[in-house]
């Protein structure tokens, strides 16, 4: 990477003689400890991070690219550009699905954030606790639960069919619509978390100014709040876009095979590795282009409050209608949110084979849970998943926050590159990331300090770290965009070293965003499957692999029972973390916004 220090980063002091040997040493020391204002500091901070990213993400990506051109040159790429073939249409389908997912998730997520953070109504706390459950749905079983709910043979269409006595199931979701339903459900938390962190950190007087100038509520949202949320929305859009682009299970289940990831899989099955690599590279390029576009869009404006002093949320709303509407909307939201979990529960409690053409199962049993709990090693995968994703999350927080800081606040060469490097891991399908890691660590090399990591415990947390770093990075970066740098300057001015100022002021103010990212990283880590399945060992089998094995032998009941365990576990984590970080402040916030 181009992390080499360059003197041109900061305008040179003209007319200054080059420091003589005598006074060079103290000044160098000064610079290194100098913090954000030293011209060396950015590189000191960024270099190790860049190294990590280079080793684990960028370099393997180049390897993927090399693979794609290795055998037959650019032929694979011409297929994307020319011809009406599968390549182009899957690229278009993928783009279409991703763009639509961003839109839908944005609407749902921001609306939820608005309802929950701006209104006080009965049951708000409960919804806050379950809001992330869709993101926590176990892989495979989660997707299947959507199918059991909304597909042609699903509970809802069949229920409606019975209700109205129609000949065919009513309102089934198929194809792309089905994919979008799944995407919306599972990815809106990206928007929800980002938007609620940003709403909490926003300067409220700006909103007041808009009302004062005569803007109505809708207009204030359109012209002030949403634009001010841009960093958060950009961050969430990026994550959703890339997740959709790399999404595999949903298109698979709803039979949309003209997508990039499906084609990657098919080409791998075909044994056409160069073509698969070409798909992966195109995926990465599309993601990078989207990322750069978003960066540009966001960079045009400033989002940090320019107000003097600190303003509090002081606007008081009494709108009984709004309150009840919010309540009604939330009850609906709860039902919809919990429906997939409810479906998994139904499956978990129904006897195998007892649920065929009925709307809901006819026979119930405890057997699936008995099966799980009678296995002495049943909890091992759960513990494994917890431990590994916790480790990875800690790593993500440390590295992600620092990179976010570097990219937002420091002026150095290669800022955009660093940004791209982090996000790359998210843009690539998990399979590709895992294969990259295996190739990188199946022998000892510099990035693993000469250790062979394959076959050890550490490869799993490392994979999670690389995959989920973008989550923490993005949401930290979004909150950082709102924070007035003069706060950090004030701390520095009072004598705090960079580290101290960062820790006591900047980081503290970033916390809502960091916590949101960490939560996402953790939840995703617990459910990770695609990469895990390629690198786990029998000691480190995660819960997702266990679920998959049950699914594979079509013990769908026990798989669902495992899934239930995972959901309950993540729910508990969510409630605890909610209590810890924003439970109280969020309700205080909401209380202020309603009288």
């Amino acid at each position: 990477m181009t992390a080499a220090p360059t003197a041109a980063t900061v305008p040179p002091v003209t007319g200054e003689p080059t420091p003589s040997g005598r006074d060079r040493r103290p000044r160098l020391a000064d610079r290194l400890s100098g913090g954000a204002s030293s011209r060396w500091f950015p590189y000191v901070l960024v270099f190790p991070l860049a190294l990590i990213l280079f080793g684990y993400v960028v370099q393997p990506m180049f390897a993927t690219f090399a693979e794609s051109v290795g055998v037959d040159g650019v032929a694979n790429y011409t297929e994307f550009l020319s011809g009406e073939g599968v390549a182009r249409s899957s690229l278009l389908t993928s783009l279409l699905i991703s763009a639509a997912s961003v839109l839908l998730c944005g609407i749902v997520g921001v609306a939820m954030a608005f309802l929950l953070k701006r209104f006080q109504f009965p049951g708000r706390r409960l919804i806050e606790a379950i809001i992330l459950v869709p993101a926590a749905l176990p892989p495979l079983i989660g997707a299947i639960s959507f199918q059991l709910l909304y597909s042609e043979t699903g509970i809802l269409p069949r229920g409606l069919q019975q209700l109205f006595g129609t000949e065919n199931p009513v309102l089934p979701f198929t194809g792309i619509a089905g994919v979008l339903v799944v995407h919306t459900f599972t990815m809106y938390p990206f928007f929800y978390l980002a938007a609620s962190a940003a709403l909490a950190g926003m300067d409220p007087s700006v909103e007041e100014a808009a009302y004062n100038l005569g803007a109505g509520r809708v207009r204030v949202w359109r012209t002030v709040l949403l634009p001010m949320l841009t960093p958060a929305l950009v961050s969430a859009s990026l994550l959703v876009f890339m997740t959709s682009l790399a999404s595999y299970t949903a298109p698979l289940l709803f039979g949309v095979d003209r997508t990039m990831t499906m084609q990657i899989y098919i080409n791998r099955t075909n044994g056409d590795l160069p073509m698969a690599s070409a798909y992966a590279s195109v995926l990465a390029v599309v993601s990078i282009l989207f990322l750069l576009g978003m960066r540009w869009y966001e960079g045009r404006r400033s989002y940090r409050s320019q107000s003097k002093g600190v303003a509090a949320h002081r606007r008081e709303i009494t709108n009984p209608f709004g309150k009840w509407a919010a309540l009604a909307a939330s009850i609906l939201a709860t039902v919809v949110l919990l429906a997939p979990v409810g479906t998994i529960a139904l499956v978990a409690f129904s006897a195998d084979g007892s649920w065929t053409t009925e709307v809901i199962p006819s026979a119930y049993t405890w057997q699936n849970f008995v099966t799980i709990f009678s296995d002495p090693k049943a909890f091992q995968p759960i513990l494994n998943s917890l431990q590994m994703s916790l480790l990875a999350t800690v790593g993500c927080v440390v590295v992600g926050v620092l990179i976010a800081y570097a990219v937002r606040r420091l002026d150095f060469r290669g800022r955009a590159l660093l940004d791209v490097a982090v996000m790359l891991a998210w843009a690539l399908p998990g399979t590709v990331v895992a294969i990259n890691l295996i190739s990188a660590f199946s022998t000892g090399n510099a990035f693993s300090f000469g250790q062979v990591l394959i076959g050890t415990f550490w490869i799993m947390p490392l994979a999670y770290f690389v995959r989920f770093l973008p989550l923490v990075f993005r949401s930290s970066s979004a909150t950082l965009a709102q924070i007035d740098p003069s706060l950090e300057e004030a701390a520095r001015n009072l004598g705090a070293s960079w580290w101290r100022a960062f820790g006591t002021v900047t980081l503290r103010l970033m916390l809502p965003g960091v916590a949101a990212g960490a939560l996402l990283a953790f939840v995703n880590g617990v459910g990770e499957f695609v990469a895990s399945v390629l690198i786990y060992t029998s000691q480190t089998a995660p819960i997702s692999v266990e679920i998959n094995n049950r699914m594979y032998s079509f013990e769908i009941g026990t798989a669902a029972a495992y899934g239930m365990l995972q959901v309950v576990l993540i729910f508990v984590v969510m409630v605890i973390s909610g209590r810890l970080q924003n439970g109280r402040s969020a309700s205080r916030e909401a209380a202020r916004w309603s009288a």
Partner: protein
Amino acid sequence: MIDVTLESVSKRFARAGDTAAVDDVDITIAAGEFFTLLGPSGCGKTTTLRMVAGFYFPTSGRIRFGAEDVTRRPPNKRDTGMVFQNYALFPHMSVAQNVAYGLKIRKVGRADARRRVEEALGQVHLAGYGGRRIDQLSGGQQQRVALARALVIRPRTLLLDEPLSNLDAKLREETRTEIRRIQKESGTTAIYVTHDQAEAMAMSDRIAVMESGRVQQIGAPREIYHRPATAFVARFIGRSNVLSLPVTGGTDDSVTVGLPDGGETVVAAPVGHGLRAGETALVSVRPEHIGLTSTTEPGALPGRVTELEFTGMATNLIVDVAGESVQVAAIDVPAGLAVGDQVGLRLTRERMWVVRP
């Protein structure tokens, strides 16, 4: 053009102890009037403005615009233009976009809006800054954008919360003339908060002096200055010596008091002051109404200079007269006057005035 009435309005903040930020305030502001709130920091000026703008609901009391009760009307339905004490500029918009925001909402045509924005920026001496980002402006420039944003929409009511605090004297003077002109022209009712008393005096039709959430006096600038109701007002508006002098007699609108040097003088007092001989009257006399003479002049109070501060137009002295510190502002000070010198003070008796404690 609308009059604004506050009827025994109070505001208490939940977590700030039990003292009210605004306490039973009654104010009636006539349509088209330029009304100023004056008072020490933290006395409740901003809170009052924010209730008029609709960002706080009064804990008790009502607010009327004309005959209508607007106490709970949402802020965007009030047609008030507010300059926030903290500016509250939209950081994601350029200077011109900030100023144009209210016009857009009022559906002013494109060309017309552009013209009005240009004009407003010109009025605050920021012509040519329209394309800048807010974070590329100096503090005073930001404040002027906030002002332009409120002025450009010509609201029925203007609420100005220290809109000139970060401007230099020169610009402040020019801008306040501009504000006054616009307000007069469009017949806007203006409520103004300032810390600059000269500004308040020069601009206002009437002034309310507040302290700890309560209104101490409402009146025209001269009235407040020359006839302060209380010692607090006397001291707060301009500077004032409030002397405690023994009452020796009096009429309905004046009292006779004894002076430190043994003389006596008749001092104007509010009608119905109720002071009797033997009681102590608080008499306010402004530093600039005390002349410096030689100690030998007849009727001059002798004193010793204890402090001396040059402030440009006048020199401020503190003179010790029989143990009481008297502030004096003198335009021309005898050359070479220094701390410790003996001087004579001549009180301008017709400018002395009895105040309530």
